[in-house]
């Protein structure tokens, strides 16, 4: 079976990684409980600066950045671990956005650019986000419509995570017909940020209008090379976050089903509840296996990484949608209220599904990879 037979990625998990997970879970359970997340709903910024500081102190904001520039120099497995835990508690702090943006700089920057930008990013003093999505929803760097002209940028990016709180954006721009990654400060003259009304209040997003803003830097490597390094990481991290969320939604629902009584017994004793929840469990655990496979492939520098990361992204999006839909349904009337946490996870799942390609998109590419492209 050719393409699948050749998968050579090996799973590994170190003591340190297990400790990181325990630490993340403990820290997030206290600092980003679901009550704390809810409390940030009306907040105009949407995340807690104290949590940011704590993440910085733990070294997680520079998780993937090189050690020589103040980063932790860790890999995809650690990133997946943090993302999964963040997903469990719907952490509103833009950890994923920042870590990915810092990685963009690390991968794409010249020695000097890395030396300039990475230390403040790793320390958390400078907040960053990757602004790669077009208003129409295309998200590959080659699709960018932002143009550089005489040192000024013109164009718009949308669906940018943490648009209102990032200090600097990494965005693909067209320079003399070539696509490069520009770094632009949010306070640059000619850059306007508009918050978007998102379905998911636990991960804020916005639109960036560039009307002659000047970039601080153009990263050295071509955007397509940077993207190739970033995408598997980003898919895997988002997939991990979704697996974490699906697990939390499942736990929430199983706990409710074990105690809520109707007809003289807990509703979880009814197979109409029990068996769908088991199906959620299966979908979630299979997606989790794909997440760790993809992360290991990335860390092993393995060619499998793209295939496995796409599988993880597709599988986790389906599992998250399924888990959260059943979470609302099985909470019954309570599930239909704002007070029940089920819809918070449902909203995140809906918002994450299209991000960086929905399951249909990825399955089409998976087919291309294992079957060869279709005749045109």
């Amino acid at each position, binding site marked *: 079976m050719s393409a699948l037979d050749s998968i050579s990625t090996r799973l590994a998990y170190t003591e340190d990684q297990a400790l990181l997970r325990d630490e993340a879970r403990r820290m997030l359970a206290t600092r980003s409980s679901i009550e704390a997340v809810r409390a940030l709903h009306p907040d105009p910024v949407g995340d807690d600066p104290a949590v940011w500081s704590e993440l910085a102190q733990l070294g997680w904001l520079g998780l993937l950045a090189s050690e020589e520039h103040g980063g932790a120099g860790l890999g995809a497995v650690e990133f997946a671990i943090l993302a999964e835990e963040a997903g469990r508690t719907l952490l509103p702090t833009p950890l994923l956005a920042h870590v990915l943006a810092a990685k963009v700089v690390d991968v794409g920057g010249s020695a000097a650019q890395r030396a300039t930008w990475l230390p403040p990013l790793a320390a958390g003093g400078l907040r960053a986000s990757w602004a790669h*999505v077009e*208003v*129409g*929803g*295309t*998200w590959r760097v080659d*699709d960018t419509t932002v143009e550089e002209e005489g040192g000024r940028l013109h164009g718009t990016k*949308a*669906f940018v995570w943490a648009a209102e709180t990032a200090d600097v954006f990494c965005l693909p721009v067209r320079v003399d017909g070539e696509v490069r990654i520009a770094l632009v400060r949010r306070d640059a003259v000619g850059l306007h940020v508009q918050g*978007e*009304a*998102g*379905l*998911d209040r636990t991960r804020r*997003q916005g*639109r960036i209008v560039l009307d002659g803003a000047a970039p601080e830097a153009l990263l050295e490597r071509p955007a397509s090379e940077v993207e190739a390094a970033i995408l598997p990481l980003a898919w895997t991290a988002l997939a991990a976050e979704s697996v974490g969320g699906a697990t939390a939604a499942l736990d929430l629902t199983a706990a409710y089903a074990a105690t809520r*009584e*109707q*007809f*003289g017994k807990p*509703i979880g004793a*009814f197979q*109409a*509840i029990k068996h769908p929840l088991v199906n959620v469990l299966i979908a979630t655990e299979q997606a989790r296996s794909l997440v760790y496979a993809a992360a290991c492939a990335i860390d092993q520098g393995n060619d499998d990484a793209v295939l496995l990361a796409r599988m993880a992204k597709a599988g986790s999006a389906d599992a998250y*949608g399924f888990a959260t*839909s059943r979470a*609302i*349904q099985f909470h*019954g*009337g309570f*599930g*239909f*209220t*704002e*007070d*029940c946490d*089920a*819809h918070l996870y*449902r909203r995140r799942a*809906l*918002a994450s*599904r*299209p*991000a960086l390609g*929905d399951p*249909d*998109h990825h399955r*089409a590419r998976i087919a291309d990879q294992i079957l060869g492209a279709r005749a045109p």
Partner: protein
Amino acid sequence: MAQEEIFTQEALDSFRAEVRRWVEQNRPPDPGFVLPQTMLSVTTDDQFTYLRDWQAKVYDAGFVGVEWPVEYGGGGRPRGYQRVVDQEMSRAGVPFLINLVGLAWAGPVILAYGTEAQKQRFIMKALRADEIWCQGFSEPSAGSDLASLQTRAVRNGDEWAVSGHKVWTSLGRYAHQMILLARTDPDAQKHAGISFFLAPMKIEGIEVAPLTKLTGEGGFNQIFFDDARFPAERLLGQEGQGWEIALATLGFERGASDGAAGGRSDVYSYDIGALIELARETVRDGRPALEDPSVRDRIARFATEAVAMRFSRLRTRIPGLVADRPMALPLMAKVESSEHLQRLADYGCELQGYAGSLTKGDPAAVDEGEWQRFYLNTYSMTIAGGTSEIVRNILGEKVLGLPKTR
């Protein structure tokens, strides 16, 4: 049966033209604020007043209670006419009729079980939305297991005194009347001790506390009864007959029985047609979504389901075509249509790609974010009036003859 339909076809067609003309000429003005998608989500006084006025206007034109008896304010026309009105209203996209509980559940059971005095007292006012109705069935610990309800009604001379706690009451804040289930005999068997009341809402001893829905909208309420008293003639049917009448009401709610006075087909205006329109305007991966074979396959699936449901409704009216399992189609309708719309709404959000992450209020949201709100609201359909799980139990037991699950 088929013959009767053919016979009245011409008359029906001309009635349809009349309705269509009236709707065109009487379309209500843009309210200038967001209207709820269903009567479950009426949150503000402005919304309430606007919708109530609209129903009164439709009633005055003769299009509510079209098939109901003339003596109680109905139109007295044969079966089939109300459906024409509902279809035309739905097609024109005018607002829904707010008094759904009155038109579709309370009204029909009062006609079926009420005294002459009760019919005179309640029906016309319900049709014209002069009196708004709400439903007091569910309780915090009596949802799917409705018969375990604990709200008590005690007879004191000419009065009933009610104490208890109801939830998920739509329009509770605005309603004048409630169809109320309460336990009148705590010593009787679970189902036998329940009675059915037409309870006044604007009396002492009733407190209404709003709930917020998962969409962020209001509309649901909790109702607290603390020795609320009303006259004995507010009992519907006999003492202890409550469960029987409740089942009849749920039959109406689940679409298993005909006889509503309007408003049924209008609960949500999103459907396969809207999905096709959405797909027509959507670009995916740089190509029109309609060129994507997987989108086409999904739409063909939804279309097949939608057409099947339409013909299942029509088939219900032809006894020969449902002879083998007469209860199957009416009982199936709720679970099938609600789950169909839930999948369809979800797919509508998915089709939008990144824009699917936006919601009402964002200028870039597709169709003003209605798909997202619609999707979240579909859970009211799969949960309220008997969850999909409960309805499947009923189908398995009543239609397939399988033993009870307990």
